[in-house]
């Protein structure tokens, strides 16, 4: 088994609406895979199918090498938080975890250590209904960690968390991944995913736009060179030079933005010098995951 998740032509149709259409992707074992897409793109539907909560209309899939038609074979090794945390309001955080530990046949001893791990040990005895959104989210993550999972599926785990909470979750995911846990995480915080996800699956309107290494996706995007001439009168002249050499450019904020790789920077510098233009700044930028996402999804 080399994949944590593998789906082929997975589809889900509700009435006449297609929530997911022939999705195919693979998530290698032991990696962190980001799952991104605009709202309504089919992320949660996919996750629900992987967890056996809804039945696919078509296609096949495996989780930890077992078919998704038999979730009982792999779910004991899977931790999941789907569409935010959901617990019993009248029970304490600890009691909620004990309910799930009893259900899954896990040791009750884990409850305390997990509360500690997610920073809830002091509020473990408080009723769930008194928790803030961030605390509820942490409890959801603690519940997902109950089985000591080989695969962790997290749907928007950083919702409602403050910056330090987001950082803690990021570190937790990194820590779990370094221990060999595969993590499949959907999030709208693309800058966070860019830091932790080696693999990426991108959805739009129920279809897979991209699945593969995050670096491959970013590398395939067109980079931008930003050149700032010493004198602003040279801006248009510089645009003319780059365009003439096959690199379209625009003037933005007192600098020329040129569609070109970083390697072309030396040529640009030489061309500008030959034309009598002194560059006061020259830098290259690679599109971020967020920019790539917007570009690809057309959002």
């Amino acid at each position: 088994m080399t994949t944590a998740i593998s789906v082929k032509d997975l589809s889900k149709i509700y009435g006449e609406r297609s929530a997911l259409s022939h999705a195919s992707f693979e998530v290698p074992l032991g990696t962190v895979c980001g799952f991104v897409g605009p709202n309504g793109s089919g992320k949660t539907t996919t996750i629900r199918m992987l967890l056996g909560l809804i039945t696919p209309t078509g296609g096949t899939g495996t989780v930890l090498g077992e078919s998704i038609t038999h979730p009982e074979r792999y779910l004991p090794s899977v931790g999941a938080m789907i569409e935010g945390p959901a617990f019993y309001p009248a029970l304490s955080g600890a009691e909620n975890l004990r309910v799930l530990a009893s259900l899954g046949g896990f040791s009750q001893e884990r409850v305390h250590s997990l509360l500690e791990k997610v920073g809830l040990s002091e509020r473990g005895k408080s009723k769930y209904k008194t928790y803030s959104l961030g605390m509820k989210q942490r409890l959801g993550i603690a519940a997902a960690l109950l089985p000591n999972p080989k695969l962790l599926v997290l749907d928007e785990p950083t919702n409602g968390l403050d910056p330090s909470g987001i950082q803690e979750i990021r570190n937790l995911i990194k820590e779990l991944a370094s221990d060999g846990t595969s993590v499949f995480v959907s999030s709208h915080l693309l800058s966070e995913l860019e830091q932790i996800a080696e693999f990426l699956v991108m959805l739009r309107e129920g279809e897979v736009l991209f699945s593969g290494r995050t670096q491959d996706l970013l590398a395939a995007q067109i980079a931008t060179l930003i050149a700032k001439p010493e004198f602003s009168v040279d801006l248009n002249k510089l645009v003319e030079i780059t365009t003439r050499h096959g690199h379209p450019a625009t003037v933005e904020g007192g600098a020329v933005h040129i569609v070109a790789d970083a390697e072309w920077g030396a040529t640009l510098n030489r061309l500008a010098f030959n034309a009598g233009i002194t560059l006061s700044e020259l830098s290259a930028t690679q599109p971020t995951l967020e920019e790539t996402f917007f570009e690809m999804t057309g959002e």
Partner: protein
Amino acid sequence: MFNVAKAELRKLRRPTLLISTILVVAALTALFTSIVFLRANSGNGNGQRGEIISPATLSAATGLVYGFKIVSFFLGITALCVFASQTAQEYSLGTLRNLLVRQPSRMKILAGKYLSMIIFAIALVLIDAMVAIAISYFLAPHAKVTTSAWFTASALALLGKTFANVLFGTIAFGTFGMILGLLFRSPISSIATGVIWSLILENILAGVVSSTQKWLPGQNFDNVSQGGSLTVSYHWSFMIAAAYLIVGFSIAAVLFKRRDVAN
């Protein structure tokens, strides 16, 4: 299934639910049993639907269980509310997805839940029995009721039989609540429907068209608890109640097994 039942019992034993349910059951039992004994000599109705229960009747072996079974209908309604809310809240709170991730076999979830509810129902009936017998014994001298026939072998056998009947009726109402919870997936809708149907509509129907009494589920559940009546036999009610429960639970179980969990 036993892990599910264990998890469910953790939820059922939370103080707000457990204590309030025990208090309601104890209070209703105390009230109804007291009425039976305190009004035994009044010559007016002191039993169900204005029935007159005389001190002579209460002095027989049946006197031991009269207070116990008179409250069975309300025990059933209590069970209906608890079973319905415990089932439907899994949908309304979104906790069903947690349960199914930890225990993917939906039938085991259902069986475990049902087992825990049965344990809860046994506790309710036990409390009812203990409170009713204690109050009956305490009020017997006041009502000029002799209790010597209460502690004979036949009275104790009757107590066992009544316990089983009241338990069956309570579980039947609870199962009805659970079915409604699975169908409506909302605690408020399922409790409201169950209570309005059992407490109001069935009684109006049975009162206006008496022949419907032998076909209505709630009337038959309660008739089993009462050990049968002059108009509808115990065996008829038992068969009809069992048929309702088997058909209703089968439909609800198939829906629970096949329906997507999308909330």
